[in-house]
């Protein structure tokens, strides 16, 4: 069985929940974790993390941004910077943020740092919108 914990600096979102299957936005793309997965440590990007609780067939999802995922025989631990469930997301605000960041990115004389910053903002807003829909 797969034990799954999700923690952020501000709260412990999920503690030792038994799950059937996990989908995490990993460093090189979506990563599907099933029971018996080889020990793994990876960084996470921004995106939507999905999990299926034991005995249930519906997927629950959480929008996360950057973090780490460790898979060990003990279970899966996800350390994320932020984690928001569907109920917590303000979709209108996310859409607005996306538009704003996209517009800001049009500016031709942006510093490389700023470009990165806005790209991150876009990713984040996109993940939120994806989840909210």
């Amino acid at each position: 069985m797969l034990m799954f914990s999700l923690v952020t600096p501000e709260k412990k979102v999920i503690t030792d929940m038994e799950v059937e299957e996990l989908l995490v936005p990993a460093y090189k793309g979506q990563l599907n974790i099933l029971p018996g997965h080889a020990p793994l440590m990876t960084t996470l990007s921004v995106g939507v993390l999905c999990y299926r609780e034991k005995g249930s067939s519906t997927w629950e999802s959480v929008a996360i941004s950057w973090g780490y995922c460790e898979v060990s025989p003990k279970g899966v631990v996800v350390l994320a910077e932020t984690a928001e469930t569907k109920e917590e997301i303000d979709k209108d605000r996310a859409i607005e943020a996306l538009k704003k960041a996209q517009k800001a990115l049009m500016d031709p004389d942006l510093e490389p740092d700023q470009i990165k910053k806005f790209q991150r903002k876009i990713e984040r807003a996109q993940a939120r919108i994806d989840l909210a829909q």
Partner: protein
Amino acid sequence: MASLKDIRSRISSVKNTQQITRAMKMVSAAKLRRAQHNIVNLRPYANRILSLIGDIAATQRVSHPLLEPIESPKSVLVLVVTSDRGLCGGFNANINKFAYDFYRQNQGKYSKMDFLLVGKKAIEFFKKRQVEPVDTMLNLAKDVSYPLAAKVADRCMTAFSQGDYEAVYLIYNQFKSAISQEVICERLLPISLEATNFADEEKKSKEGPAFSKDLIFEPKPEEIIEELLNKHFAVQVYRCMSESVAAEHGARMSAMENATKNAGEMIDGLTLTYNKLRQASITTELIEITSGAEALKA
């Protein structure tokens, strides 16, 4: 001798003060609960990060400049965390005194010692003593948020990796319980190995060393540990700030409780004198009336 009117106004003014201190106590108690909640929520995250670092360090033998302890650092950066507002007992005085002692004792030891001050009280204190901070920071209690801590951490980290400092210390009030806090000086950088080892051992004892020998890393372990160490440092700063905020509310709560009690005692005392004085004046008046009447009779 104060007149009746004087005492009456004294009583009402003390009563007003008591009302304020009582309200402040309630507010602090509520804020304390929230701050405490914050710390409790943060701990699992901080522990997990530490154990991840331990895992990597144990299996991959990666060395990192942030992990190398330096025997006798020459240049240090000291972070001092205080509050913006007073009325919290010895909270700020203790920490300022400790930081200043630290400064005087180690002045000869280090060739360079810089301060990064958090909170208005530390800034004022050091300004009076002509110690120039490299940077200051305000408004901690309002929103002790992770992004804010990350900003401070990032600053320290950049300065550290550029070689400006060989060690980073943080002086803050550790939250012991609602009524007690302790001034602590912690070395944040280079990251202390003892703590890492401890987490490592704990982990090993829990699940045996068998696992994680052939851990898959994505990306390379060097890259992960770099990020993890940065994150660990930011989390440490955040934790210390949260502790300081919780300690501040705790200190204020107990200070205000004492103030409320003292005000109550003062009111009791004043009321007693007031009643005595009132009775005395009634008695004198009565005596005057009766002696007047006696005089008329005679």
